[in-house]
């Protein structure tokens, strides 16, 4: 049995038994949705449908309905793409990296964080798909034998690396998530009464894959989880490094920097944790998980946000320093233009939201307050969106030729698609919170007797 110091704060509050954990986790699945769930769901569904309409309009009419132009030929869509991919990273960090570091507090939040990863990456994948203009030709990006003469993909291109990285990331995340879900679906299956809920019983029987909790199965389960965590850890770092190389391997001043991979990975973790907090602070209330997702969990995440936020700040300043130190006037201009040019407000929002505001987490009262954390997490989400906007749009809008200098502004279609992905994301997350065990209950039971408040007395 695990031993844990008495001084360490408990991770499970209240006098819980194993059966209490089962009941608490199964309650949102077995019960009926409350009013707030329906309100949130309807709002998100409306946004989602609006987004789908905008996507259909884009595909039917052409990319001309977006605000892109010849100079700023990557803008709104790729900003959203990088933002969503970044959000996904926290889920894998929590479930894989924290597993390797044996951080037990991950157990209460890994399931939902990983759901967020999968839903976030799905939103991200939509953007390159619709930017293709003819999404039914999307299979062109895969190296498959074809009838177009030997037309193959270019393995030297970071865009192809991205295709491989993101599809591997998405599918491996799904598998990792599902392997962990099997024992929890089995728990739900065994609780369902055949007479009262025959359809649900069938559904969870289907999804539980016949799990029965044999000793040998648990042994394999633990080893498979550990190896998947070991594989997912370099994978998650590679994904955002490769996303950053979409920019860093080009020769655009402001993009062509070697700091991009670590800087993007840190930014991704930073924004991902902020989104985890935004979601979980609401979710713990709506589905009554306060005993499992405690203030301590929120505080740990805030510490990570403070750490990664400060490192992102260091990266911003390093970029400025390197631009000056390089002596390349184009590079120097690109950064001067970011801070003082026509898009100064985007740069200022980024600096405020990402570097200044997270410093408030040094104050104990703020990092243990739910309301403050919720507000600050929204700021970080906004700040990280602006970071991508600053990197992409301000680097492009002052071209090498002053005659092609221009500005970018989104059309209502651009905004509609972005809002649509937010709606789609929340629709998926809300459905998940009603149909899936939102906390990895099997794992949580294994730490009850070492980290439960009842057993720490």
């Amino acid at each position, binding site marked *: *049995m*695990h031993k844990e110091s008495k001084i360490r704060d408990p991770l499970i509050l209240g006098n819980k*038994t*194993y*059966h209490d954990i*089962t009941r608490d986790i199964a309650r949102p699945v077995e019960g009926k949705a409350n009013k707030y769930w329906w309100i949130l769901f309807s709002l998100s569904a409306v946004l989602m449908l609006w987004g789908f309409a905008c996507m259909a309009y884009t595909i039917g009419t052409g990319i001309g309905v977006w605000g892109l132009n010849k100079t700023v030929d990557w803008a709104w869509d790729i900003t959203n793409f990088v933002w969503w991919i970044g959000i996904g990273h926290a889920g894998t960090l929590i479930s894989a990296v924290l597993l390797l570091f044996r951080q037990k507090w991950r157990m209460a939040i890994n399931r939902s964080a990983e759901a967020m990863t999968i839903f976030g990456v799905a939103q991200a994948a939509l953007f390159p798909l619709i930017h293709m203009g003819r999404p039914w030709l999307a299979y062109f990006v895969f*190296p498959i034998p074809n009838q177009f003469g*030997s037309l*193959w993909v*270019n*393995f*030297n*291109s*970071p865009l*192809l*690396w991205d295709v*491989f*990285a993101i599809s*591997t990331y998405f*599918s*491996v995340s799904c*598998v*990792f998530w599902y*392997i962990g879900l*099997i*024992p929890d679906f089995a*728990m739900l299956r*065994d*609780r369902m009464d055949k007479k009262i809920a025959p359809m649900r019983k069938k559904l969870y*029987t*289907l*999804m*539980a*894959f*016949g*799990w*029965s*909790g*044999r*000793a*040998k*199965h*648990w042994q*394999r*389960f633990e080893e*498979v989880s*550990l*190896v*998947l965590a070991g*594989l*997912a850890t*370099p*994978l998650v770092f*590679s994904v955002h490094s*490769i996303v950053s*190389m979409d920019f860093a391997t080009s020769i655009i001043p402001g993009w062509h920097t070697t700091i991009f991979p670590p800087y993007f990975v840190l930014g991704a973790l930073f924004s991902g944790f902020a989104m985890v907090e935004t979601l979980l602070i609401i979710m713990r209330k709506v589905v009554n998980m306060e005993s499992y997702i405690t203030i301590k969990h929120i505080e740990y995440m805030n510490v990570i946000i403070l750490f990664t936020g400060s490192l992102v700040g260091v990266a911003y300043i390093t970029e400025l320093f390197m631009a000056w130190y390089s002596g390349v006037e184009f590079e120097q201009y690109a950064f001067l233009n970011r801070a003082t040019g026509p898009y100064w407000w985007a740069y200022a929002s980024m600096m405020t939201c990402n570097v200044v505001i997270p410093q408030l987490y040094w104050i104990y009262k703020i990092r243990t307050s739910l309301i403050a954390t919720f507000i600050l997490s929204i700021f970080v989400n906004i700040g990280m969106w602006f970071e991508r906007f600053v990197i992409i749009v301000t680097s492009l809008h002052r071209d090498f030729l002053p005659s092609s200098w221009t500005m970018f502004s989104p059309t209502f279609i651009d905004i509609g698609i972005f809002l649509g992905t937010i709606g789609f994301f929340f629709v998926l997350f809300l459905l998940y919170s009603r149909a899936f065990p939102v906390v990895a209950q*099997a*794992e949580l*039971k*294994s730490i009850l007797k070492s980290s439960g408040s009842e057993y720490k007395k």
Partner: protein
Amino acid sequence: MKMKNKIIHAIFDDEQDVLSVVKDLRDKKFIVNEVYSPFPIHGLDPILGLKETRMAITAFIYGCIGLSFGALLIYYIMISGVGKSWPMNIGGKPNFTFYHNLPSFVPIIFECTVLFAAHLMSLTYLFRNKLYPGANTTSPDPRTTDDKFLVEVLYSENKTDIITLLKKSNVCEINEKDEV
């Protein structure tokens, strides 16, 4: 030798009791056929006499296959096969040799390694555990996914010895079954 074809199901509330009971039973040479539990019990595997699992080794083998697959795919498309008919010089990286281009092939070879290792290991895991969509549970008691731990003992005679041993521990239920 008589077949051991009778079963006792002992149900426990706490994993610590399972550990001590399984140890006592196996010390007395009784056959503990299976333990069903709602979560992994750490320290049970050596007591139960389970061998170490080889899942990690399979992952390594699948990873090697993925690495070779990725490398061969790129070699064919960029260098030897298609690359011969459509030579390309991208960013000063002519595609005459594999190793000169290797740095820009690393990301995809790495992704293929992870893709193969993760997916094939997970499939092996499901296959070895006989888990598939819609399979029925083989657990004798549905409470074992909730809060109960079930120890399955096989025997043919000296049933009373087993029962006495179980009763000395914190067992909460003992059920007997006749056939295997």
